[in-house]
């Protein structure tokens, strides 16, 4: 059985840490510390250096300068193995799980077995089950990872850290992909761990969460530490200002727009979900020109199915869909997009972009066979493609070294801007925006919001699907709430009440 | 009037061989011989079965044992690689006769015949003819691996050319495979690019080389060995050295029927007409030259002409710089007795 040699971590101090990447000074003389029984949050825009700093602590990167002390003694952490042995656990921004292996196997991997060479999966499973009960994690050790939802996968990550008796746990953007309910559950676990004397480092772009969970907050900007402050003295506005270096507006002026003709209409739409059961039930929905309709709901209640049905990536089993009054049920995704439908998918790395393609190639993923990108529909016009890409890069403030950089080396926020640029530049009649700001820092979020509002102003009909209720409330003209595949309520902007909507999202009945 | 089938009177032969029966080479020569005997003796008196493409020696072993149990009268292991297993199996069936080739070793067993081919003799004759017919003075040879009867043939051929004119250039190319037709083709292309106007070669992959010669439309001639290759290329084949195993097989059959099951070593050669130079009838040859060939064959039979290079005769001019080492290992007198035709035939 695991028997970690490490003593409990009482304190970790990182001093004057420096990390260069080719052409980037990612971390510049940063001091950072965390104590037992404390949650220390790390804040900063995309690319501020948070992940890099934490990867240094976890032994994935080696620092160019600076030192790390544990319980006052200098340590040298050269690989994750050392970190694990010292009692450090990390939940990565991108989960470090092997999809085809079971929960227990993922936990057991890298551990010593009590049976020498042979696996002791039964023993590991048993202990996982116990831990899962203690922390109320509700994870079945025998299920393969790819069966699990993102939230469940994250619980596996936490379980794994607990299993290894990590006394310091680093969580890099753990909430980016969680539903509000899952965030609450996570926080319960984290508080419990804190009480047990664990040290926690928490990274998030969501200020509300940071304020809710942390004891101290450190803000990084461009690789440098801005300050470390106690959470009690911080407000959302002050944090946003520290991060971005200017004031950030998260409330937008609302200008009513003349609602014109219906652009998108769904009547009595039913569709199946991936696992075969009913994903959408009797959806009736209309979006007009110049209107943003927000779809609120806890993730997994049919949002993805809704977006896919409209985009033409999932067949309906009943009902009709109209685009500009024309029935499009039998049109392919391509035909729909030619008719003026744009789609910003939720899974941007899978459905939105091709990771190994360059920025320019991704910009023309839609309409690559149309003028001016193609000549006779067959030969690519590389010059025109480059020109358009440059324009997008300027217009949408996309941070990229060149038009020929593969998108996989851009940050998530910049990839999202690229998708937005591509979809909006086609001057669509209807835009489906699914989780457009997930994992994006506040600066970029604000930018994306402004762009959406601008599109609304010129008459685009926008369906905004988001789990972030603040986002929905800030942008939508109308809000519908989706629960278990059904639309369970609709409210206008004026009558929107966050509590009522929250209740509907949780499945409580519609307000009378 | 149905004739009664009398099993006792039917002579039954089984043979295992390394490549296909239509390879126009080593395996086909045995197959043709058996067909010939069957024609002579009649289907009622002579039957045979075969297993072709047997690359793995243990497979041959299984077949040999199976046939021995089933009471075949003569079981032939056509390929020197089967020697080791035969040595193991034959003693278990003292009443069954086995034959093994090409080699000269009967393992001291009196139920094993050994047989070999003095293919250097026909090679020498082909070389003699080639030297006389070549106008460019360059001759190309395409071989599989430098071993067995292919090596004997090539060595004899080179000697035959030198017998006519030491100055002629013979380029020998062993491509290292019995099955790679594309490479054999390319080897022939290389010879022709180097001005060769006569080509020859041994083993089944030479069809490619023959094709290249055909494309030259009469400017390049071909000499065959093992089987009669005239049908491959009627315009350009001058002659083929053909193996007639039936000559010695008939002897063996007689001995077996008389109760002698082995102990003898046979060799097909020009003398016993197991090796025959078969000319292409459509190819016009000078009467004088033909007469010279006849005389040469007589001289070879009489032993007046050396068809293989002597160990110390080797000079840097030709291509057998390895002969010195090879000839010392295990080979008795002029034949080195190893034969590995079609070894890599059944690899897939």
């Amino acid at each position, binding site marked *: 059985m695991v028997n970690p040699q490490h003593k409990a971590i009482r304190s970790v101090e990182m001093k004057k840490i420096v990390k260069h990447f080719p052409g980037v000074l990612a971390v510049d003389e940063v001091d950072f510390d965390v104590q037992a029984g404390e949650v220390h949050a790390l804040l900063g825009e995309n690319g501020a250096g948070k992940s890099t700093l934490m990867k240094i602590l976890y032994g994935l990167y080696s620092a160019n300068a600076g030192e790390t002390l544990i319980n006052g003694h200098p340590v040298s952490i050269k690989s994750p193995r050392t970190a694990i042995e010292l009692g450090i656990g990390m939940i990565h921004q991108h989960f470090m799980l092997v999809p085809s292996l079971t929960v227990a196997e993922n936990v057991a991997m890298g551990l010593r077995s009590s049976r020498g060479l042979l696996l002791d999966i039964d023993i590991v499973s048993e202990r996982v089950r116990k831990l899962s009960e203690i922390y109320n994690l509700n994870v079945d050790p025998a299920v393969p990872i790819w069966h699990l939802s993102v939230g469940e996968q994250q619980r596996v990550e936490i379980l794994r850290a607990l299993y290894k008796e990590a006394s310091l746990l680093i969580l890099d953007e753990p909430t980016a992909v969680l539903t509000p309910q899952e965030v609450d559950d996570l926080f319960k676990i984290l508080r419990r761990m804190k009480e047990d004397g664990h040290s926690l480092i928490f990274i998030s772009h969501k200020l509300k969460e940071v304020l809710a969970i942390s004891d101290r907050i450190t803000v990084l900007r461009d690789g440098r530490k801005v300050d470390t402050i106690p959470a009690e003295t911080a407000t959302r506005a002050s944090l946003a200002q520290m991060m971005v270096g200017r004031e950030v507006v998260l409330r937008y002026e609302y200008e009513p727009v003349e609602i014109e003709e219906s652009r998108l209409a769904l009547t009595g739409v039913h569709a199946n979900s991936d696992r075969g059961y009913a994903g959408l039930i009797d959806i009736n929905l209309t979006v007009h020109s110049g209107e943003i309709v927000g779809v609120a709901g806890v993730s997994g209640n049919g949002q993805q199915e809704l977006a896919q049905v409209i985009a033409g990536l999932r067949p309906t089993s009943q009902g009709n869909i109209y685009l500009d009054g024309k029935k499009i049920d039998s049109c392919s995704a391509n035909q729909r997009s030619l008719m003026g439908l744009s789609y910003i998918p939720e899974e941007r790395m899978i459905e939105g972009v*091709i*990771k*190994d393609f360059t920025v320019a190639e991704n910009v023309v993923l839609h309409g690559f066979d149309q003028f001016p990108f*193609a000549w006779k529909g067959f*030969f690519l016009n590389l010059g025109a493609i480059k020109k358009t890409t440059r324009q997008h890069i300027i217009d949408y403030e996309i941070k990229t070294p060149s038009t020929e950089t593969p998108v996989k080396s851009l940050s998530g926020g910049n990839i999202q801007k690229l998708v937005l640029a591509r979809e909006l530049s086609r001057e669509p009649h209807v835009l489906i925006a699914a989780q457009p700001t997930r994992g994006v820092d506040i600066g970029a979020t604000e930018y994306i919001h402004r762009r959406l509002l601008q599109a609304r102003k010129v008459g685009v009909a926008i369906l905004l699907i988001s789990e972030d209720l603040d986002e929905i409330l800030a942008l939508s003209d109308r809000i519908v709430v989706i629960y278990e595949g059904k639309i369970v309520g609709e409210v206008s902007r004026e009558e929107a009440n966050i509590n009522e909507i929250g209740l509907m999202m949780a499945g409580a009945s519609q307000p009378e | 009037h149905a004739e009664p089938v009398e099993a006792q009177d039917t002579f039954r032969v089984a043979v295992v061989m390394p490549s296909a029966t239509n390879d126009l080479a080593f395996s086909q020569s045995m197959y043709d011989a058996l067909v010939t005997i069957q024609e002579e003796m009649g289907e009622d008196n002579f039957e045979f079965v075969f297993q072709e493409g047997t690359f793995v020696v243990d497979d041959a072993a299984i077949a040999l044992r199976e046939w021995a149990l089933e009471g075949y009268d003569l079981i032939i292991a056509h390929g020197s690689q089967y020697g080791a297993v035969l040595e193991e199996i034959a003693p278990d069936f003292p009443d069954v006769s086995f034959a093994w080739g090409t080699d000269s070793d009967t393992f001291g067993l009196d139920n094993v015949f050994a047989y070999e081919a003095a293919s250097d003799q026909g090679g020498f004759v082909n070389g003699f003819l080639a030297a006389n017919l070549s106008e460019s003075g360059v001759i190309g040879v395409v071989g599989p691996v430098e071993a067995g009867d292919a090596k004997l043939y090539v060595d004899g051929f080179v000697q035959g050319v030198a017998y006519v004119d030491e100055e002629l250039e013979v380029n020998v190319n062993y491509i290292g495979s019995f099955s790679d037709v594309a490479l054999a083709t390319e080897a022939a292309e290389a010879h022709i690019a180097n001005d060769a106007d006569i080509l020859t070669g041994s083993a089944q992959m030479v069809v490619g080389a023959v094709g290249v010669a055909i494309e030259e439309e009469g400017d390049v001639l071909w000499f065959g060995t093992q089987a009669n290759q005239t049908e491959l290329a009627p315009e350009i084949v001058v002659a083929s050295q053909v193996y007639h195993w039936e000559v010695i097989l008939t002897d063996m059959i007689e001995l077996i029927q008389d109760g002698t099951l082995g102990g003898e070593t046979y060799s097909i050669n020009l003398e016993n007409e197991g090796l025959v130079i078969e000319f292409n009838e459509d190819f016009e040859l000078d009467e004088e030259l033909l007469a010279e060939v006849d005389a040469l064959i007589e001289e070879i039979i009489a032993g007046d002409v050396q068809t293989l290079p002597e160990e110390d005769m080797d000079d840097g001019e030709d291509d057998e710089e390895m002969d010195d080492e090879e000839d010392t290992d295990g080979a008795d007198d002029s034949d080195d007795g190893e034969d590995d035709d079609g070894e890599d035939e059944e690899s897939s």
Partner: protein
Amino acid sequence: MLDEIFRTTVLASAIRLATPYIFASMGETFSQRSGVLNLGVEGIMLLGAFASYYTVLETGSLVLGLLAAIGTGLLMGLVTAFVSVTLKAEQGISGIGIYLFGLGLSEMLFKRLVGTPTHVKGFPKVDIPVLTDLPVLGEVLFNHNIMIYLAFLTVPLSACILNRTTLGLQIRAVGQTPEAADAMGISVARVRYFTVTLGGVMSSLAGASLSIALVNFFQGNLTAGQGFIAVALVYFGAWRPYWVMAGAMLFSTVNALQLQIKTIESALSFDIPDEFAVMAPYVVTILTLIIASQRVEQPTALTKPFERGE
């Protein structure tokens, strides 16, 4: 002198030897770039080789022979596509199935319909007016038959299609992230049907290049593993047409050199020391390793059937 022989004979020879590899591996490049690993190349080559050979033998028409090869390739390509795209079979398995099928069927048909190897008149050398008369280059590059020119022509063509056309963009997208391609309205199935069928035709032409242009004969297992090597060459060239061609040429040059070493020796009138033979493989290895250290764009969805998660 040596120089000359090397350039004219060895290179011309390498060009011929490379021809079937180039056809087959260009086709496989398309197929793999779109995410389909076709291990059945060898089987299709054999069928194409037989079909064209038999047609030429019976009709004497090379054009018909070529058409027969194209038809066979089309058919086999469609079958392969059906199995790997529509049935979503595990690609390694279905490829071996196609290989065994081609191996067995071509040999059986040959035995039944032809019997013994019979020579056919293959494509003749084509002189290209001015080019063939160029001093050295003429002999090396422009003294071949049309199938050889065709093979080498497919290389820039493939590169151009893959990198500069909308079709190429679709192929690469489908091979990288089929989900994204699908979401963009590209039909993953259609693109893969196209590339796999094209791969079939090219494999079949590779076979025909042996049986009616280079060897001008057929026999069972004529290709002797060349199809598998062609697949390996696609990895070697890391899915880039010019690199794949370079690999095929490297491979063929080594073979050609070995064929002609005697000729070269006699031209030099001294024996090339064995040390040369000893070193050749090392040199090739080191060369390939230098190339190998380059990083490349991979079709990440290779071997993965696409399903829209329904």
